[in-house]
């Protein structure tokens, strides 16, 4: 075992032990919350930096023209309960290094959990040798858009309370109380609740002088209440509570115990809801539903790698193609539609100080007044649009959308938070309902499916309300709408104002091969879309 390995282990085991002590000491932990694992002292571990430098040196000596390396320690905690029982309580950590190299315009990537001085050299050489194997005659070389080098510093999620310092008993007690509160409703037969926490400590360095360290938190409390009647069952998921890039304060503010009776009531109410009559309706979409429609129909088709065919074998391509015929000209939706990519929103899931190319992300417009104006990019991709940026007087730079889910995976283009901007009129949910003569209001996300170019989509929800003469007249069930993306966004005629903004989101955005999971938020306001096709999904098989 090398010296740096020993030092490294000493540090990490001390840090881990400290975390466990905090987890077990109840109130005593509270005073440690600000001084414990969250203190800047735990960021930028010199042992990490030493290993990163060693890996970069080894890659350069082996022939890499460019190299970057990431060491990350991911810690996750999952608590699952059902009714009065804890179904699972687990705490996982994984630590390792991934080294990416460019050799004559060809990528190589290798990763290992062996964080020793020898291990990182071996994996750097392995990445270079793989890059050489990946070269073929006549290939189009990878070139990286310029980025400011010498990026140095630390960044940390907007988390007030490190979830790993909160005693597990407290978390379990909260979930079981919420279950109890839901089960007071006699028809709420099954209740599942859970908490998931992630803390990732990631250090990144590249051969252009970047060395940055980030501490990323993600938190998701959730519940599902299932009501059963003879021959029917209906569930209500608590997806009006979104996962967020925050700490345990997000769980506290979610008020699970207070909300549980409502979710139970709503699950029971769904049993008695009227089956929808298929047809065309004006749809009023709640932000707790709309975020997923934005994710699928706007955020995915504006990924540049997808548009250029790089994801054709799995995630698919895009109808927003080819760039030279759509940038600045494609009518994506009505003039009320403004979409922005942004990784700076506090508490959002994609927030970061630097992406996995070492680039500081910037906020950028994707759709402006209904017109498509830009794609999501990484350093490799920004140069593909050099002609457009020159023409429109913008700098050719990456928008900072590079991301890998762990040390073991290669980074590639992933979506930032992609959000619908509020409208100028200060409209709220109730205003949209009272403005609608015949429609359906949808709350919460449900079933979702969209084609590989992001044209044809079908979305369900959690709750459906029938609107007549500007009023909610009852509850519906078995509702799903089918849409074609440009028509759906073209049919947007009312947009909520800043007061009704909500940040939805998900952990499980899948793309790439091997499939990697991205966590992303989508901010939005309530919207109305005229005359959308609604089907009835209730069937007996």
């Amino acid at each position: 075992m090398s010296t740096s390995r020993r030092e490294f282990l000493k540090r990490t085991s001390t840090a881990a032990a400290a975390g466990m002590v905090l987890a077990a000491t109840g109130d005593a932990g509270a005073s440690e919350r600000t001084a414990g694992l969250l203190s800047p002292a735990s960021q930028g571990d010199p042992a990490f930096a030493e290993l990163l430098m060693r890996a970069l040196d080894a890659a350069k000596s082996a022939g890499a023209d460019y190299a970057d390396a990431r060491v990350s320690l991911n810690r996750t905690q999952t608590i699952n309960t059902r009714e009065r029982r804890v179904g699972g309580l687990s705490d996982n950590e994984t630590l390792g290094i991934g080294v990416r190299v460019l050799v004559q315009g060809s990528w190589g990537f290798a990763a290992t959990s062996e964080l020793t001085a020898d291990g990182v050299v071996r994996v750097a050489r392995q990445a270079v040798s793989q890059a050489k194997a990946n070269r073929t005659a006549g290939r189009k070389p990878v070139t990286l858009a310029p980025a400011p080098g010498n990026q140095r510093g630390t960044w940390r999620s907007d988390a007030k309370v490190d979830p790993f310092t909160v005693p597990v008993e407290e978390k379990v007690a909260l979930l079981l109380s919420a279950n109890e509160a839901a089960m007071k409703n006699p028809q709420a037969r099954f209740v599942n609740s859970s908490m998931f926490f992630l803390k990732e400590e990631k250090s990144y360095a590249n051969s252009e002088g970047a060395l940055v360290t980030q501490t990323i938190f993600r938190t998701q409390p959730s519940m599902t209440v299932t009501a059963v009647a003879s021959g029917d069952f209906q569930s209500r998921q608590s997806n009006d509570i979104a996962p967020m890039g925050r700490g345990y304060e997000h769980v506290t503010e979610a008020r699970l115990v207070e909300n549980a009776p409502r979710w139970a009531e709503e699950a029971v109410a769904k049993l008695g809801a009227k089956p929808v009559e298929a047809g065309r309706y004006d749809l009023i979409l709640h932000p707790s539903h709309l975020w997923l429609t934005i994710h699928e129909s706007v955020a995915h088709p504006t990924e540049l790698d997808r548009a250029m065919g790089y994801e054709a074998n799995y995630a698919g391509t895009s109808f927003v193609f080819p760039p030279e015929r759509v940038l600045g000209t494609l009518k994506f939706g009505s003039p009320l539609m403004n979409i922005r990519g942004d990784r700076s929103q506090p508490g959002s899931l994609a927030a970061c100080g630097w992406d996995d190319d070492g680039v500081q992300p910037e906020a950028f417009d994707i759709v402006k007044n209904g017109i498509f104006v830009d794609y999501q990019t990484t350093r490799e991709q920004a140069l593909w649009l050099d002609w457009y940026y020159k023409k429109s007087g913008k700098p050719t730079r990456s928008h900072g959308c590079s991301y890998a889910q762990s040390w073991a995976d290669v980074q590639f283009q992933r979506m930032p938070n992609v959000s619908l901007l509020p409208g100028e009129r200060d409209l709220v949910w109730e205003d949209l309902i009272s403005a609608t003569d015949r429609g359906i209001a949808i709350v919460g996300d449900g079933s979702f499916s969209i084609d590989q170019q992001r044209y044809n989509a079908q979305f369900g929800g959690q709750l459906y309300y029938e609107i007549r003469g500007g009023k909610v007249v009852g509850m519906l069930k078995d509702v799903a709408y089918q849409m074609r993306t440009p028509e759906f966004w073209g049919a947007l005629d009312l947009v909520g104002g800043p007061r009704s903004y909500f940040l939805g989101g998900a952990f499980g955005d899948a793309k790439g091969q091997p499939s990697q999971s991205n966590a992303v938020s989508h901010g939005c306001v309530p919207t109305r879309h005229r005359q959308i096709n609604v089907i009835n999904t209730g069937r007996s098989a």
Partner: protein
Amino acid sequence: MRRATQEQGATSLSRAEAEALARRVLGKSTATEARVSLSSGARGNTRFAENQISTAGDNTNTSVVVRSVVGKKVGQAATNRLDDAGLKAVVEMSERLARLSPDDPELVPELEPQRYQEGKGWSESTARLDPALRAAAVSSITGPARATGLVSTGYLETRATTFAVANSKGLFAYDKDTDVVLTTTVRTPDGAGSGWAGGASNAFSALDPVGLGARAVDKARKSVGAMAIEPGRYTVVLEPTAVGNLLQLLTGAMNARNADEGRSFFSKPGGGNKLGDKVVDGRVTIVSDPFDPESFGTPFTGEGLPTRPVTWIENGVVRNLNYDRYWAGRQGREPTGSAGGLKMSGGNDTIEHLIAACERGVLVTRFWYIRGVDPRSILYTGLTRDGTFLIEKGKIVRPVKNFRFNESPVVMLNNILGMGTPVRVSASESGNAGAPVVVPPLLVRDFNFTSLSDAV
């Protein structure tokens, strides 16, 4: 402590190493009962786009999962730090979590030592596939695609892993296996045509990259100029991959507890479950057999229970639902012990025979973005993709636009008109190596296409 099996640093634990590591972990336990699960090995992948390799990755890792029972309380923790401090920390964490947890009323004791058959899922042809060999396999697809003016994209993944489960009662189980999956989507440069082909096995030697590439090229060419036909109920010829995409949804819904609790298709109205009921066509038999050479699986479950061949559906009748150890004990049944993986019965027809038997219908290459709509009927939605053709008078006559379906695998298996020879498919949408799926092509009536998609 780990063994380098090849130059590029692939590592996996041997049986002796796994046993030694498990003993080190269990030696640190102070719990009433403890179980350790080890997973160790190498993964490699090569991606290609625009007829050249885009990215690739090789990684090695060993993970240790410790489950501790303190009294009647359970906690679990995992790490990949294998030094004494890391192992001590993971054991302590699992015990701490257990102590903080309420008693588990559904606790099942750890198993006593068991006897296992030897797993047969390891193939050297997969384990030794390094970046250069992967690049060579890829070029046998990209080369012909480029030569015909088409654009190939795709993915080759290998996994060589050893698994072990050990517990404080002396149980020890060890297995090693490999997986490989190769998929490609070939498109015309203008995006007007798209064709897919893929294959999966435990042995790379069983795959045919050249043939697979040729199939995708052929479909890409023939799919250009797709016309719209009205959505509705169509007779369909489902290629084996498309059948695999949907069949997994049925077996995924066969949880016994959900059925007994009244929240499943397999719940009987008025109580109980559908064990013994005929739910699909009498020609349908579905089994999971970890020792079948076409669908090798691990010889033990995550708890160390020996796996065995399980018949889910026999001649259309539900023969097994999936019982975990707790629910089996409560309901007076044996735990199922399935290794995952699926094999469905078939016939002797080739896919050409099925097409020839179709007066008017649609040929489906694969499905995409399949998501649940209604668990009461196992209703799913999704779309056709990368090779959808109209059949008239027993012949493929032209490409048609893709459809969205809203359909249940139960309905599909009740409407069978013809069955071909089962083959192993790459049934995951993502092209990741998953449990083996061996299925026939099917000729099915009244398949419910509900809308059109402009996506190619």
